[in-house]
């Protein structure tokens, strides 16, 4: 279907792709594997016409092609579904799906009926039960991603590139996605599938191509290899997943939440969190698992004071009562929140590493109202060393770093506040396996130093690897609190699946 020959791409002197050649076949799912910075994204951007400027040749359907923009690539039959969503928030689902390729009536006006009907079929196929007239901004990240996939399905492309399609969607949506990919494969389409989640690659992919440092290291059939084999080729050495020794002794309670309710912004839609009570002890890692829409993110946000007028219940930190009032109050009490979407909520991408790290503690870094440059540099230097943040200097812009390093910056800025409780929302989303392991190790180290930690994650292996106790949520309720030695994948999933419908 598609053959790439000797492609080299340089960015102002830095080689991102070095003499890459590969083939994607019709009727096959090919996994593109590699750490962040291995060159996967650059390659995909060349294939989809984002970068028209490269050395080497691409032939697609036995024809040499060179796309000058994404639209041209789409018309020829190559679509990319980006990890970062490309939707217009204030348009409806239908309007987004048909953006730029609207169906017209014979009078030249929009044929809304036809578009809504087609959207409905697409959404049904993806098993997404929302109205086609819903505004996109009102959807959760996972639902938006499904809309994005629907948009690509409409194009009926021959080559579909999926960049981390499951990074933000729930397990049930993953199953749906996989059955769709299965259908597409049977229809004879070629699919390039980029993911860090090796488990799902073994489920869905036929072939793999491993990239490292801008080169193709190896390709082969999925059923001829295993986890460890792939990981060692990705990183050039073997890594071990961290695994925690069981349980911790009884220690004092850091955080206690009692009877927490959170109302929907629109009252009629009921409660987003219902009567939630739990505690976190010193040195304890509490994993929170739940499917999409279970209310995990809302739980952290409410505790952090982001929904002051919509919630009720009580909260104590180290025995002192705290109102769910504002992030400032939460921070003063020793709470810290590493948000789910680090680009949207975690970082000032246009500011440098140093300024991002110091932003939470500027007052402490000042003398008589003026910033102390030395103190600020030594603070950022300390965390760059401690967390091994890879940047050319502390003056590099945060937006130019890889996902793993960005996440470390967000962690650094919170560690600088000396928190007693660290809340992590999907801390390893979209970062490579090495950086993931580093973050797990860091979490364990922080817990050992006495911090209480809440880690929300939609990856069960991650929850099981790191937590001392697992809280399971479904539809805004807490459905289970399991010590790690009683928590099994089966049991957790059973509690996470909504009972209504």
């Amino acid at each position: 279907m598609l053959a790439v020959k000797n492609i080299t791409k340089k960015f102002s002197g830095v080689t991102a792709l070095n003499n890459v050649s590969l083939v994607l076949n019709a009727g096959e799912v090919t996994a593109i594997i590699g750490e962040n910075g291995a060159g996967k994204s650059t390659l995909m951007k060349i294939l989809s016409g984002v970068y028209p400027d490269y050395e080497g040749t691409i032939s697609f359907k036995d024809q040499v092609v060179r796309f000058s923009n994404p639209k041209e690539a789409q018309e020829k039959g190559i679509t990319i579904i980006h990890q970062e969503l490309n939707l217009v928030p204030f348009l409806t689902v239908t309007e987004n799906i048909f953006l730029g390729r609207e169906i017209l009536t014979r009078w030249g006006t929009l044929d809304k009926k036809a578009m809504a009907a087609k959207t409905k079929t697409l959404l049904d196929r993806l098993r997404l039960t929302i109205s086609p007239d819903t505004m996109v901004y009102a959807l959760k990240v996972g639902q938006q991603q499904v809309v994005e996939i629907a948009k690509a399905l409409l194009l009926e492309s021959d080559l579909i590139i999926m960049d981390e399609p499951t990074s933000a969607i729930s397990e049930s949506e993953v199953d749906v996605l996989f059955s769709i990919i299965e259908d597409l494969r049977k229809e004879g389409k070629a699919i390039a599938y980029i993911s860090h989640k090796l488990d799902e690659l073994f489920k869905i992919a036929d072939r793999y191509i491993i990239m490292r440092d801008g080169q193709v290291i190896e390709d082969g059939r999925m059923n001829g290899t295993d986890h460890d084999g792939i990981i060692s080729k990705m990183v050039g050495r073997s890594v071990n997943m961290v695994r925690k020794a069981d349980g911790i002794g009884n220690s004092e309670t850091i955080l206690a939440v009692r009877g927490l309710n959170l109302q929907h912004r629109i009252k009629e839609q009921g409660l987003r969190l219902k009567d939630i009570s739990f505690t976190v002890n010193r040195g304890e890692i509490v994993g929170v698992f739940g499917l999409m829409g279970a209310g995990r993110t809302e739980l952290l946000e409410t505790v952090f004071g982001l929904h002051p007028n919509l919630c009720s219940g009580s909260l104590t930190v180290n025995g002192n009562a705290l109102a769910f009032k504002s992030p400032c109050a939460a921070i003063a009490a020793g709470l810290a929140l590493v948000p789910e979407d680090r680009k949207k909520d975690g970082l000032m991408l246009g500011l440098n590493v140093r300024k991002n790290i110091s932003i939470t503690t500027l007052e402490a870094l000042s003398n008589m109202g003026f910033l102390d440059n030395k103190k600020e540099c030594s603070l950022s230097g300390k965390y760059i060393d401690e967390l091994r943040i890879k940047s050319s200097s502390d003056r590099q812009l945060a937006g130019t770093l890889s996902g793993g390093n960005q996440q470390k910056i967000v962690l650094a800025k919170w560690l600088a506040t000396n928190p007693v409780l660290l809340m992590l929302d999907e801390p390893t989303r979209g970062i490579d396996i090495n950086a993931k392991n580093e973050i797990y190790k860091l979490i364990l180290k922080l817990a050992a130093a006495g911090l209480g930690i809440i880690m929300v994650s939609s990856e069960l292996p991650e929850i099981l690897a790191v937590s001392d106790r697992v809280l399971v949520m479904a539809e805004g309720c807490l459905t289970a609190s399991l010590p790690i030695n009683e928590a099994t994948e089966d049991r957790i999933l059973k509690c996470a699946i909504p009972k209504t419908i």
Partner: protein
Amino acid sequence: MQALTLANAPKQLAKFQSLIALFFLCLVISLLSDKFLTVANGWNVLRQISVNICISTGMTLVVLTAGIDLSVGSVLALCGAVTAGLLKNGIELPSANLFIGFTVFGSIISGIVLGTLLGWFNGFTITRFKVPPFVATLAVLTIARGLTMLWTKGFPISGLGSNFAYVGTGWLLGIPVPVWISAVIVLLAHMLTRKTPLGRYIYAIGGNESAARLSGIRINRVKMSVYAIAGALAAIGGIIVTSRLDSAQPNAGITYELDAIAAVVIGGTSLSGGRGSILGTVLGAIIIGVLNNGLVLLNVSPFWQQVVKGLVILVAVIIDKANSKE
């Protein structure tokens, strides 16, 4: 290494693009007119732009937070008029048989306090009621102009005395007083943005408001401070204008907000916030000032002056866009 520095050369140059533009502007004008490159004309230009520098410094802070302040021209007029009115007539309350007189210092402070309050009001409606800055400050633009007309009854307030005139026309250590004032303001604002937590918060909010909020920054407080500062600086501009003319004109400051925005934009500050600098704005204001001055010296019609100014703004922004894409 050689290749690297060469590849970086255009980027290095881009940093100084406004400075280079200013240099060539001066070069061309001085070739065409022998009156341009004189000490007297230099002070003249600086004195003329001092008011715009006051206003555009405040505007820069506002724009860095991804906001905009359209009310500064009217606030300038109102504060100038109130300062003049208080100085000349004081406050008379015939019913209470009370008369309050104002010294020069007292009336100036009153004007600045009024400007601060108006700016604070901008910030209040923007943060408390989530009114978009464009609309909130547009409303205050109209309100403040109306209040100016009410206060002055539509007539200039003139004859303010030589002490007050010193603010706009005096010299201190061989430098015009308005130039001193604007220089001090620029210095303070530069320190604010570079050396204080508040300055950093201003950049952070413009860069990513959501992340700033989650970092525990009191967004509303920072925004209110910024609009209040912008209001105070507009008031200072109003006092300078009034003093220089020895008269508060009810229609003073009309379209000054546009000159301020132009200086900010030419100085390389992004209207979407988070990127830019006070010194850039100063350069922007100087470029506009030199351009105005040069076109006058060259006897270009005032109508053409406006056309040229507009084109310069466009070119500046286009070049800036091209550079930031890199």
